[in-house]
């Protein structure tokens, strides 16, 4: 509501009396705080400011600039310490043993897939890869606390969300090779996964663009939650890095999410770096969590190496997100980016090797959970060895199979831009097909599923 609009209402109220102030006299009692008519700024002895922009502020005669740097940093929520001991035994871990084991196995699987795919890229068998090292707990832990029907938006370092939701090794590998079985139809760079069945939108390389999408999707879910009261209520969840949180899209997203009160969980992975840029060049506030208050959003900072804390925080965030018909929640998950940014990056150009080694030794979501499992006698070296060897074999099998597949049909180069091929595109396809036909030695089309037939079909398919 604009200020001018407010003033107009105030004027109407003066002229017409209180009854006609709101949309209808019957709604006076239900009107939320922000809709109620207010007098001008304040009366002489009022204690509270009545400016429309800050309704609960008290007057003060102290000239006191807020100095965020002088305030205590926002605490970091933990359930389990570095030794795998549970801090509040009464609440415990809120996780069944079976589930803890399943989560552990998935984290190990993710880390093994990462090691192998990183190597595969180094050998020239993939063009690109990004690992999750150090952040497996955030993606897998949070995904394990969501409902499968919740809608997820990812950045690129959240392969664990896919894995935990049931993305198969073959699904990963087909995407990485962009082969004929890749559901992205060979169009995207490696690690830009997507899955309709698992309710995860396909990743875009353009940072932060998914954050407002998540807010809008959450609004759609909010409406659908109301329209289909018999169905499981759904939330949207959005992952992004602390670097991406500098983009305008982050601000736009959280602000609109707050004004529309959408059931969305915004999960920031704060891993200390955006490629080479340390957080000290990225922001000067208290992390990303400190921004939540600015948007009027419930916010928590969590130890991302503590899988139980991640799970509890996400579960509670989900509950909060669905109360009062919907509201956004922000969680800042703390971690350290153990790996290089991507296979295109050599992080020792901007950080010390020892910094990384220190971190690896200090803490890690996988070893921390393993400590807990061992304390519970749920795990031992033999189990670890067996799991690792079995998982390696599974990954390599999927890898080899995917590598053997054909490339996707060339038709996918043109389809999917619009719902239907345009006349212009069809002409372009014809021209391209004509060149390939006349210069057969110059093009290797046989590696693509269906060879030239992919193009023939496109040209033939008249609108």
């Amino acid at each position, binding site marked *: 509501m604009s200020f001018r609009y407010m003033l107009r209402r105030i004027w109407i109220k003066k002229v017409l009396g209180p009854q006609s102030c709101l949309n209808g006299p019957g709604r006076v009692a239900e009107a939320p705080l922000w809709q109620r008519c207010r007098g001008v700024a304040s009366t002489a002895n009022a204690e509270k400011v009545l400016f429309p922009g800050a309704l609960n502020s008290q007057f003060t005669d102290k000239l006191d600039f807020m100095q965020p740097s002088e305030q205590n940093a926002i605490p970091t929520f933990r359930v389990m310490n570095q030794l795998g001991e549970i801090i509040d035994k009464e609440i415990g871990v809120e996780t069944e043993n079976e589930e803890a084991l399943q989560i552990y196995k998935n984290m190990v699987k993710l880390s093994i897939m990462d090691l192998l795919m990183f190597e595969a890229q180094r050998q020239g068998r993939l063009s690109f890869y990004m690992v999750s090292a150090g952040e497996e707990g955030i993606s897998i832990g949070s995904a394990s606390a969501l409902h499968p029907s919740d809608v997820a938006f990812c950045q690129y370092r959240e392969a664990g969300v896919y894995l935990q939701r049931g993305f198969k090794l073959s699904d990963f590998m087909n995407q990485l090779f962009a082969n004929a079985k890749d559901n992205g139809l060979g169009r995207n*760079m490696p690690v830009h996964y997507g899955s309709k069945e698992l309710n995860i939108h396909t990743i875009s390389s353009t*940072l932060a663009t998914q954050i407002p999408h998540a807010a809008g999707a959450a609004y759609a879910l909010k409406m659908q939650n109301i329209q289909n009261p018999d169905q499981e209520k759904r939330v949207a969840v959005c992952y992004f890095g602390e670097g991406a949180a500098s983009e305008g899209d982050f601000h736009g997203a959280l602000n609109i999410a707050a004004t529309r009160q959408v059931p969305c969980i915004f999960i920031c992975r704060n891993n200390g770096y955006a490629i080479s840029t340390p957080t000290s060049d990225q922001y000067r506030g208290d992390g990303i969590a400190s921004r939540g208050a600015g948007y009027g959003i419930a916010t928590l900072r969590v130890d991302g190496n503590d899988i139980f804390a991640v799970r509890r925080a996400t579960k509670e965030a989900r509950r909060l997100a669905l109360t009062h018909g919907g509201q956004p929640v922000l969680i800042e998950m703390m971690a350290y980016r153990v790996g290089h940014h991507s296979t295109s990056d050599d992080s020792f150009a901007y950080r010390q090797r020892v910094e990384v080694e220190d971190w690896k030794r200090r803490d890690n979501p996988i070893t921390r959970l393993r400590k807990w499992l061992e304390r519970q006698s749920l795990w031992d070296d033999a189990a670890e060895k067996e799991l690792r060897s079995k998982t390696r074999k599974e990954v390599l099998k999927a*890898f080899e199979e995917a590598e053997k597949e054909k490339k996707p049909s060339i038709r996918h180069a043109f389809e999917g831009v619009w719902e239907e091929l345009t006349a212009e595109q069809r002409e372009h396809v014809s021209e391209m097909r004509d060149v390939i036909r006349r210069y057969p030695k110059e093009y290797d089309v046989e590696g693509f599923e269906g060879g030239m037939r992919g193009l023939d079909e496109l040209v033939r398919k008249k609108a």
Partner: protein
Amino acid sequence: MASKAPTIRALTRYLLRPPVPLHARCQRRQYSAAAPGARLNGSVEYDTVPILNHTSKSALSNPELPAETRNGQTKRINLYTAVNEALRHALQTDERVLVFGEDIQFGGVFRCTMNLAADFGTERVFNTPLCEQGLVGFAVGAAAEGMRPVAEVQFADYVFPSFDQIHNEVAKYRYRSGSTGVNCGGLVIRMPAGSVGHGALYHTQSPEALFTHTPGLRVVIPRSPTQAKGLLLSAIRCNDPVIFMEPKILYRAAVEQVPVDAYHLPLDKAEVLKTGKDVTIISYGTPLYTCSAAIAAAEKDFGCSVELIDLRTIYPWDRETILNSVKKTGRAIVVHESMMNAGVGAEVAATIQEKAFLKLEAPVKRVAGWATHTGLMFEQFIIPDVTRVYDAIKQTIDY
């Protein structure tokens, strides 16, 4: 995790077990590579291509260089080093120059800003937060208050958050400010652009046509290290804001002899790279190499003579040089990577048609990206290759 290193090595061996029939020479998986038996495609040889200066003598014979420079030394460098040298010279000679962008402090993801922060200090060379609209808007303000900011956008594909700043602010600042005279000249926005073989949707784009639709901007795309150095220095000195798009595949691929001195190249002149009689090819950036290879094959096979022009400054562009050439040859082909629809080729072709209609022997042909996005596996079919340019020459002279 450190203890796992030997295991990784063991796994590596395991991974290597079934040897894959990859081309021996390619380091990384080439999603878009030329066919093994190709004669035309994949025939760009950067070591011998005539559009690079392989000797000091040819580098110094460039008539656009000032006399002192032509009497000076040259050094064999690649394109990112040439950019670095231009930035270094600008920082050294003009205290108004600032260099900033995402990750530039450690040298940048393409190494263009190596050692600049160390040598000139982080007051003048610094990392920005990850926010293109923020950093470009910041550059506008700094320029409007008398600095010469050189802002880097990490990839041309990520310039769009700053599109509002560029189209509505950068371009209109001078006009809007009227007789106050305030403007943001001196602002340069650098960005790596273009295809590299495996960049897919968001590491491949060449969005120049989106900026050539905006009066008030200058859009420059260098083809080589020599050009990059001289054009970037002119862009920094220019009192109009400049969008400077660097073909990122050329950062390392294009290596040539470059004058050691600082020098400036004109921002309003196209350059005739090769004279010819029968057909004019107009292009810029990476496709010039494609064109050069296609011309070599076409001239040999068809006995024709092809003129090759580098547009260099894509907007405002040098109509005179292009029209004079087309009036001479009677035939024109425009080649660019980005999509054909409403691309630079459309503008050039329309201008030729308007101004040289009676001299034309054939329709102006466009060889450009098709009307689609650059899907990872399909780049080789979408971005113009040597075969398509070769065939366009044939079709145009046979018309």
